[in-house]
């Protein structure tokens, strides 16, 4: 009897194994091809060069040498690096602070209008980035100058047309459009805070401000940390909506690293020219080597020194 049960369990286990293998094999092959092979190929590509006659050949560290030499020669690398850091620092700081404040307000106060706020704040994420950016561009370049002319009788250029205000307008747009979703994520985390913790704090006479710093922030810090890690990981990927605003013809002054990498890749692909791809891969590899330790260091630091839920 016991042997029969064991046999049946063994048979079930074998069937489970076969079924499990059937389910996961194709997706794992997909992962191998589109993640492992892509990234492995990216590393190989960084050490190759392309010639239209002979195709790809091994180039050793030449792409990296060219990259460092170009860094000294062309100013746009430094500008792109500066803009990427600016978009990240201003964008992340303002977005995180405002998103936390707004979500805390909705969590504590706006119990009746919560759903309306949620829908309105989520709306920009639903509309295509190209449609949103075009609407903003028309508003900033056409409507705002007309408004200023009507009210102040003063002729001004559009915010995205005037080189002095373009970068500011780009950063403003990215913050304005970007933190609605973060509010929803923080709000979700705040709603998970146990009611008994909040009630106990209230009995201790906690105020609106002290409750935020002593109870809410430590308990949602995991979500804050995750979103910050994602933001740091995206420093050199972020195109700051430049493709949506200017296509592939943005002025060099406003380049970000992410925009430049994307623009050059698309340009090479559409022209069927592979010559530029190895150096772009080398640049990507270099940036990955910079970003990975920064992300892990930040993760470690915030875990060690960030607010604790205890």
């Amino acid at each position: 009897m016991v042997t029969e049960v064991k046999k049946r369990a063994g048979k079930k286990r074998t069937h489970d194994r076969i079924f499990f293998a059937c389910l996961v094999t194709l997706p794992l092959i997909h992962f191998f091809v589109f993640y492992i092979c892509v990234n492995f190929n990216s590393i190989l590509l960084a050490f190759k060069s392309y010639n239209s006659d002979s195709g790809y050949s091994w180039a050793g560290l030449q792409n990296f040498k060219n990259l460092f030499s170009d860094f000294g020669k062309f100013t746009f690398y430094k500008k792109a690096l500066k803009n990427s850091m600016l978009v990240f620092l201003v964008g992340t700081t303002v977005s995180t602070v405002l998103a936390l404040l707004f979500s805390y307000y909705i969590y504590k106060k706006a119990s009746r209008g919560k759903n309306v706020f949620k829908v309105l704040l989520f709306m920009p994420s639903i509309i295509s980035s190209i449609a949103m950016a075009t609407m903003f561009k028309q508003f900033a370049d056409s409507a705002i100058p007309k408004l200023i002319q009507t009210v102040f009788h003063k002729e001004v250029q559009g915010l995205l047309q005037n080189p002095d205000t373009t970068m500011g307008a780009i950063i403003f747009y990215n913050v304005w459009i970007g933190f609605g979703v973060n509010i929803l994520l923080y709000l979700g985390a705040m709603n998970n805070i146990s009611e008994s913790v909040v009630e106990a704090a209230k009995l201790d006479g906690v105020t609106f401000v002290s409750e935020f710093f002593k109870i809410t922030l430590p308990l949602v810090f995991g979500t804050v940390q995750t979103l910050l890690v994602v933001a740091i990981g995206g420093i050199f990927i972020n195109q700051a909506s430049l493709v949506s605003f200017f296509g592939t013809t943005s002025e060099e002054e406003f380049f970000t690293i992410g925009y430049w990498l994307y623009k050059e890749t698309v340009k090479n692909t559409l022209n069927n020219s592979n010559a530029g791809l190895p150096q772009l891969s080398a640049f990507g590899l270099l940036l990955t080597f910079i970003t990975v330790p920064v992300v892990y260091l930040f993760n470690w630091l915030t875990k060690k020194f960030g607010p604790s839920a205890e």
Partner: protein
Amino acid sequence: MKEKTKRKFSLSPLSLVIFVILILYVISLLVPLLWSLLTSVKGRLDYLNNPFGLPKKWLFSNYKTAAENFASNISTNKGVRTVQIWEMLLNSLLFSLGSAFIGTFVTCIMAYASARFNFFMSKIIYGIVIVTMILPIVGSLPSEIQLVKTLGLYDSMLGMWLMKAGFLGMHFLIFYGVFKVLPKDFSEAAYVDGASNLAVMLKIILPLVRNAFFTIMLIKFIDFWNDYYMTMSFMPNIKTLAFGLYEYSQSYKPAISSAPMKLAGCCILAVPILILFFCFHNKIMGNVSMGGIKE
């Protein structure tokens, strides 16, 4: 007690300041959208003389002109061909629906296998998802394009569906959470009755998670509908509406160079998705939170 504390909080000047800034932010989101909708039905002169008021004459014909000017040329084996907006709409639907369905299905199946079968590989799959989410890889697009071209998937709808048939990302974790908390009673009763693993999955488990499946598929559909980077990078000759709008917004054609015409083009892409969002916002926003999906 709670009400008393709430009333006490209401008097805080800081909360009042936050409330005012929040309202200003929400208004700032709504104003450009409403302005765009109104401007999209104005004439060029009407807009120049009256950029903020109601249209003197509601020119819905702007949408017809915009739709006609979405047309774009592509190169085929037989030469250059013009793609009209209807073909772009069809491409958008095929790309968004196909990619959303296959992406959601594969993610759901992988999460099911990983959450419900206690094998060593299940833990590996979960680990793969977590590691790839926190590993920031920059600049792999050239390699991806090269690989897609080598595999013969470049500039092909089937190729795009295949590319999107992956399981990595946040949605895997949402499905994983759903399957982990789903009671095992139904499936175990079915196993006792002699049901196979496939029958249990198709007839019992998948119907139980249909809400989560629909919600994630809807979110993916909206993402793909709005995505023009994929068309730009991987299928330049299969133009979608989003890519059509990208070309339209960058175009200097006199017929569509005015603000009302540019905005009419934006509305063609944005309005259908906004309608979809308002119809299903409870499903999209009510079901999904950072912790998972409520069934």
